[in-house]
């Protein structure tokens, strides 16, 4: 087998056609091509405009509450007796997750582009709530597509979106989860290209979305770099994040990709177990394919039909993964591992009791992997895990899974 050719930098992608190696790209219908080229042009201009960056920084600071703290999880560290564990507290952001970072960026861009109507897809409802929030702030019409099954298991977030003035459209098609919501959002966009901006919630979809969303989320890793330097005077030894589409993970990982000493770990959702076939682990259990505008690892059958994902966490319940992660996997720069529903639930309970933090079910997967490796690592090993969302939205699901009466 040929050795993987290590590039000079892991941080240069995507190339001008939106590819990360063989992944990424712009696999969309012709009707949408001019639109995504327009988004790309507008984003490149905004990125280079100090006024745009200043506006984004200002909203991040005064509206979202950035920087989020870097918190030393002292009791969990003592409990494991190994690595020194820090949480990046992105669950403390306005709206309760890292999603606001991306929404502020994209909505400021949509305003520059003069688009009055915003559409989005959502799984757990975290992106939906964040986009509805920012749309309310700027007086923009907001339509959120959400799978019918997800609406059922994320009721608090559905009501939140409605309170914020968004229209939530239930998607009954397919299995009624994130994949189906994304199909419907793309269909809406094709039909309303003139006045509509599609705010994709994760670092996936056609170019420039994976790159753009990563850039907006990289505030996470950039802050960690500064904050850990202040706290410990050095780089972390490892960084860990959960992965559905992978936006919180790429946001944490990207600033560290060229620091060879930093071990980088992405945790996918293994659902009921990889062997059962009921999981959302696209890298561990999938094959390269093309869906939703990009080439990436996908859960699919031998005929190229996309399979339904499964995870207790609605936010990880997606059969694909952002294309940059697919490439980082092939380049062997990032380790992709997985945690099951059961392991995530156990981690959720442990964190709640020891740290007084209810993690969302998504980062509970990252924590589940931390619980596996932290005890074996030396005490001077600095590990940063992205606590990318808070668990309040999940209490019904968790009560159900634990067989508890509320």
């Amino acid at each position, binding site marked *: 087998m040929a050795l993987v050719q290590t590039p000079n930098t892991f941080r240069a992608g995507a190339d001008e056609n939106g590819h990360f190696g063989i992944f990424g790209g712009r*696999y*969309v219908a012709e009707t949408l091509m001019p639109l995504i080229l327009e988004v790309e042009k507008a984003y490149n201009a905004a990125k280079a405009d100090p006024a745009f960056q200043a506006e984004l920084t200002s909203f991040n600071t005064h509206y979202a509450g950035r920087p989020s703290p870097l918190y030393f999880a002292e009791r969990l560290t003592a409990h494991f007796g190994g690595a020194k564990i820090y949480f990046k507290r992105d669950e403390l952001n306005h709206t309760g997750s890292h999603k606001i970072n991306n929404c502020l960026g994209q909505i400021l861009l949509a305003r520059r582009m003069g688009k009055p109507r915003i559409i989005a897809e959502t799984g757990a409802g975290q992106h939906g709530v964040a986009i509805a929030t920012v749309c309310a702030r700027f007086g923009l019409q907001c339509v959120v597509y959400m799978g019918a099954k997800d609406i059922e298991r994320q009721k608090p977030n559905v009501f939140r979106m409605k309170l914020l003035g968004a229209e939530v459209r239930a998607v009954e098609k397919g299995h009624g989860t994130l994949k189906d919501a994304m199909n419907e959002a793309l269909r809406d966009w094709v039909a309303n290209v003139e006045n509509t901006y599609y705010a994709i919630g994760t670092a996936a979809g056609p170019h420039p979305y994976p790159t753009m969303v990563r850039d907006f989320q990289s505030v996470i890793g950039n802050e960690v770099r500064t904050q850990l330097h202040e706290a410990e005077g050095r780089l972390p030894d490892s960084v860990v994040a959960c992965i559905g589409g992978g936006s919180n993970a790429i946001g944490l990982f990207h600033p560290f990709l060229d620091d060879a000493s930093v071990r980088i770990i992405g945790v996918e959702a293994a659902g009921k177990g990889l062997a059962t076939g009921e999981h959302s682990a696209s890298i561990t259990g999938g094959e390269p394919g093309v869906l939703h505008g990009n*080439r990436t690892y996908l859960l699919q059958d031998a*005929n190229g039909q996309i399979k339904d994902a499964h995870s207790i966490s609605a936010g990880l319940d997606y059969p694909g993964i952002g294309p940059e992660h697919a490439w980082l996997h092939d380049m062997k720069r990032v380790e992709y591992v997985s945690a099951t529903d059961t392991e995530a639930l156990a981690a959720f309970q442990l964190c709640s009791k020891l740290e007084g933090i209810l993690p969302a079910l998504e980062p509970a997967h990252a924590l589940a992997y931390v619980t596996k490796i932290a005890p074996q690592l030396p005490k001077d090993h600095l590990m940063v895990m992205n606590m990318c969302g808070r668990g309040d939205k999940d209490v019904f699901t968790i009560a159900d899974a634990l067989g508890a009466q509320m």
Partner: protein
Amino acid sequence: MSRIPARFAALTSQGRKGLVTFITAGDPDMATFQKILMGLPTAGADIIEIGMPFSDPMADGPSIQLSSQRALKHNIALPNIFEGISAFRKVDTSTPIVLMGYYNPIYRYGAAKFSKDAAAAGADGVIIVDLPPEEADELLPHLNDNGLNFIFLTAPTSSDQRLPKIISKASGFIYHVAVMGVTGTKSADANLVHADVARLRRHTSLPIAVGFGIKTAAQVKAIAAHADAAVVGSAIVDVIAEGAKKYPGQADTIAAEVHRFVKDLAVGVR
């Protein structure tokens, strides 16, 4: 070699426009699909588009989404489709067949193997909805090697700057999408189509077929007045869906309903 240029030349010499009909392979089941396919030329189809079912047809409205689901219930895959075309070719050697679908099933099958097997079965061209010219180069040489036409979509949003990029890779005909939207929803506006087709003609001498939002013989006539052919998909697929519901398992009856409907549509180009 592709039968498409010959068919358009024949239409021109007959002094009329073409009717392109779309059905999804394996909808509602393989036997009924085959019956429908065999009778389409007699019913008045000049070119036949066969949809390759996909789990996530992002550019399609409810009718074609459901047709894909009906087919996928029987696990219809590319080898079944190639068999269906081979059987058709035993009785019809002149009606062009165009395969239409999404890229992932082809990518999984292998672009080279797909092109070889599709050509061997008797297909003439392909339309891949989510493969714009920017991403087409991994399939294009294989299609060329096997004498298959690569039919690209153009849309009302395709600018004059963009059209040459599309057309430089296209062969067979251009498929112009008449509406901003997914299949089978909005109605095509003949005036807008007229303007768009005139714009396309400045860029290409390839025949131009127009589809999306065409459901009746009157619409076929109105749209074909400005183009070389009109494409009807969702409306035919709806007849199949209704037939499958009313006459479950009765392939002959369902096929007869579909052929009657196509015959009516064909009046629009005769």
